[in-house]
């Protein structure tokens, strides 16, 4: 469902490219982890996928669609197929958990009834029914990330992209977040996650792509964290 075809990206005149001839594909319902040192190109890779950045050369396909040929006005519609989760959560501090999630649905033009229906469901999926009216400031890091995941899945995207989702979390919260991502994957959503966390990778036992200096150095179907 996702194809990277010899994608390279260079920032400025830097000697080392952020991405250097990256090719791989992701099948529907896969759970792919991308590991590598800081600066290995993991985040750049994800940015290519949500059309936040353009490759210097090569193409990225979503199904049969060349992502970087999508006209600017159609981009929002494309992004709705992808849910994103970040290390720093990116929740709006002046909105409650409910409002943060409802906001994503409003932006998608969903009706008020749908919102009233789906937001509690999404929060239930991440085990936060009881924190529905709390503000992000009143939640722990793990809870915030779960709200962010709920926001990412509430529009029923085809893919969830998680950029270091456990980067700021303690081991227990990390475990919970990974379990939730796994549950989402089991429900049929493709998940692409970058991480530094060896424990997470080894525990998951799913496909692992290892990157170094902008290149893919390993791609294992049931990978371990090897660096």
């Amino acid at each position, binding site marked *: 469902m996702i194809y990277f075809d010899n994608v390279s990206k260079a920032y400025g005149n830097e000697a080392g490219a952020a991405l250097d001839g990256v090719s791989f594909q992701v099948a529907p319902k896969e759970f792919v982890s991308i590991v590598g040192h800081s600066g290995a190109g993991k985040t750049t890779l994800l940015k290519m996928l*949500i059309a*936040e950045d353009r490759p210097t050369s090569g193409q990225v396909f979503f199904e049969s669609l060349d992502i970087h040929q999508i006209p600017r*006005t159609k981009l929002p519609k494309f992004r*709705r197929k992808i849910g*994103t989760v970040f290390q720093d959560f990116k929740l709006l501090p002046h909105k409650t958990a409910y409002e943060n999630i409802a906001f994503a649905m409003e*932006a*998608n033009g969903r*009706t008020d009834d749908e919102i009233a229906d789906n937001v509690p469901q999404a929060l239930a999926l991440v085990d936060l029914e009881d924190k529905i009216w709390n503000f992000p400031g009143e939640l722990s890091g793990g809870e915030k990330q779960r709200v962010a995941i709920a926001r990412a899945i509430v*529009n029923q995207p085809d893919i969830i992209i998680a950029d270091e989702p456990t980067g700021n979390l303690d081991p227990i919260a990390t475990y919970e977040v990974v379990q939730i991502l796994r549950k989402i994957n089991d429900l049929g959503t493709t998940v692409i996650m970058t991480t530094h966390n060896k424990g997470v990778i080894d525990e998951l036992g799913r496909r692992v792509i290892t990157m170094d200096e902008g290149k893919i150095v390993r791609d294992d179907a049931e990978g371990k964290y090897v660096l």
Partner: protein
Amino acid sequence: MWIAFKRIVRAGFVGFWRNAFVSLAAIFVMAVSLFVIGSTMMVDTLLGVSLENIQDKVDINVYFVTTAEQTDIDLLQTSLESLPDVEEVVFTSRADALDAFKERHSKNDTIMQGLEELGINPLGDSLSIRAKETSQYENIAAFLSEQQAVEDPQKPLIDEVNYIKNQEAINKLTGIIQAVESATFVIMIVLVAASILITFNTVRLTVYTTREEISVMRLVGASNMFIRGPFMLQGIMYGIAAGVLALLVLYPIVLWIGPETEQFFQFNLFNYFVSDFGYIFAVLVGTGVVMGVVSSLLAVSRYLRV
């Protein structure tokens, strides 16, 4: 579509109130520039009216010699009236002219004395001619000089035609008024440009405080219109509020200055303000709305770039 519109409107109002202080600043800045635009409109109207007044005073006066026969004068009057360019021809008899002269100079003893010593009426009959259009005076003047040329030099009829003298003064005044008009126009352009910049910066402040919200909106796939909408609406609200504020400030000033202009220009500015209120309102509020929307769009576009 309707849902999106409803949400944009709601978000616009929420943004307006949440940034009340910045909104207020933006409104005041815009109100000042709109006030300047409004004042310029007023000055422009006054200048236009006085230009019209002056042009209205343009006429050609034909003064006849004191010995002119009434029949000859009547003949000339009829032939003038038959010209297509002529609006009207008014005859003033020498007696009437003398009365008017005496009345005008009643306080000047020297002139009155001189007149008394003279014993006779030195003034001749006269015709004052009004053309339909200012530009047609040339033709009438040409016609009159033709008449003068064919007169019997032994028994002249026309003493003087004073068109040329008037024309110079009128040209000068028109020039001054037009210079003032273009000067106010330049000043207005500069002020409007300055206030757009200031408004833009002020609006950018409100956008800056919500930049996180904008980036999250983009991530969850909100369309650009959905993101821009609330800010455009805020810009519209700034414009309307600023326009109304400018009108509220303008009102007492015009009320106060109205009688003065009545005396000086024979034109009551306050009456104009009241009778053409719809137009003035549309110009000020419309300019405000355009300024607000343009500033908002410029400010948001920074955060919408991919």
